[in-house]
């Protein structure tokens, strides 16, 4: 990774120097060993602080929404899974491709203080969905994190409805509505979220009742359904350790099973499973029939 970082740094400095890009979106170190933060660098001098490596877990795609409004091109470092988020934003016309220079960054699985990131335990792909150039290594092309991505969902599906209810009430009751999951989510890009909009009829700022706890997460999962790339940032950032990815993965699993394999951000099709249909689709009753046999 050190070698990847050095090449990346050299390349970024060169691109800044020749005017191809006006700034570089990457990471810098924090106070300790693990607490890296996303950072913006505008010249070679600032680039001294640039780092890339095991603690560059944050998905920089969402920052691109703001960066895309700036003058000139931005160089952004994207890991394979991050490129899916970026590409999905292109699909949704939220980003203009020509405003970015993308370095696809080889990734050997990201970590934090507690070890490998949850999203990296079930790594989706080492392929870059979109890039201008790739800086990786043989090591980074090898598969990492081979856990079954849907195992957690399948476990919950096996439970009785009451068990699932108890599980989710236990988890969601911890929610403090800090909005970290929403604000970090590259699919949650609404100019104004329905939960912040008094006219939406569902505005709320605190999980006052269990209904509001549920509501926020149901609507959030539903709103990103078909657009969520399963980047796992929601669970990573939750200060209350709520396994939010299990909601998104459930919808992904369902859509894959009912409407065919689909990975948001992959390929060139802008339609998502929820903005397309076939005449032979399953009836909603399939949900009611499950487990009844």
């Amino acid at each position, binding site marked *: 990774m050190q070698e990847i970082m050095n090449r990346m740094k050299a390349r970024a400095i060169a691109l800044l120097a020749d005017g191809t890009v006006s700034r570089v979106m990457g990471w810098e170190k924090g106070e300790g060993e693990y607490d890296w933060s996303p950072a913006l660098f505008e010249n070679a001098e600032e680039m001294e602080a640039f780092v890339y490596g095991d603690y560059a877990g944050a998905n920089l795609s969402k920052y691109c929404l703001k960066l895309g409004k700036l003058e000139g091109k931005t160089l952004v470092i994207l890991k394979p899974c991050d490129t899916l988020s970026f590409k999905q934003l292109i699909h949704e016309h939220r980003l203009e491709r020509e405003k970015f220079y993308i370095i696809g960054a080889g990734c050997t699985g990201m970590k934090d203080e507690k070890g490998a990131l949850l999203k990296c335990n079930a790594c989706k792909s080492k392929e870059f969905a979109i890039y201008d150039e790739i800086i990786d290594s043989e090591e980074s092309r090898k598969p990492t994190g081979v856990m079954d991505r849907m195992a957690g969902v399948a476990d919950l599906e096996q439970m009785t409805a009451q068990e699932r209810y108890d599980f989710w009430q236990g988890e969601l009751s911890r929610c403090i509505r800090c909005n970290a999951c929403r604000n970090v989510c590259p699919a949650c890009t609404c100019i104004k979220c329905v939960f912040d909009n008094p006219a939406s009829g569902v505005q709320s700022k605190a999980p006052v009742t269990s209904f509001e706890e*549920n509501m926020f997460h149901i609507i959030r999962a539903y709103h990103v359904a078909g657009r969520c790339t399963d980047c796992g940032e929601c669970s990573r950032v939750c200060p209350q350790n709520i396994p939010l990815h299990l909601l998104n993965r459930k919808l992904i699993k369902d859509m894959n099973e009912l409407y065919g394999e689909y990975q948001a951000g992959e390929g060139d099709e802008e339609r998502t499973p*929820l903005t397309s249909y076939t005449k032979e689709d399953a009836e909603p009753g399939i*949900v009611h029939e499950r487990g009844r046999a």
Partner: protein
Amino acid sequence: MSVNNPNWKPKIVAFCCNWCSYAGADLAGSGRMNYPADVKIIRVPCSCRVNPLFILRAFERGADGVIICGCHPGDCHYTSGNYYARRRLTMLFSLLDYLGIERDRTRVEWVSAAEGAKFAKTMNEFVETIYSLGENRKLSDIRCKKS
């Protein structure tokens, strides 16, 4: 499934598309086909107009069951509305079920303008199901309960 209050009557919201199911409900009425008064119908232009927010809103406000009726797949007045509705509602129902909320509180039924009898039968069945499930406690907002 116990119903604590013997006087409890369920509240059931039926979203009906204007072109098929609402007309089907009218036909049930013209044919004097009985179904319980617990069912109240809201007219929408198409089943694809039914936002999951409306369904959640109904539960929030204490509805015990929500049923969405639309044209049969392929018969949509707007050609494709019910196809989108079918996917959206399947996903919503699945998510609610995943959260442990009784899946039988929600239902989708395709009822054409000619199927008055089917409309009445569907409503009778649905009301019966809701009676057996009892009051909706898992997905209502306690603040909305009339004290």
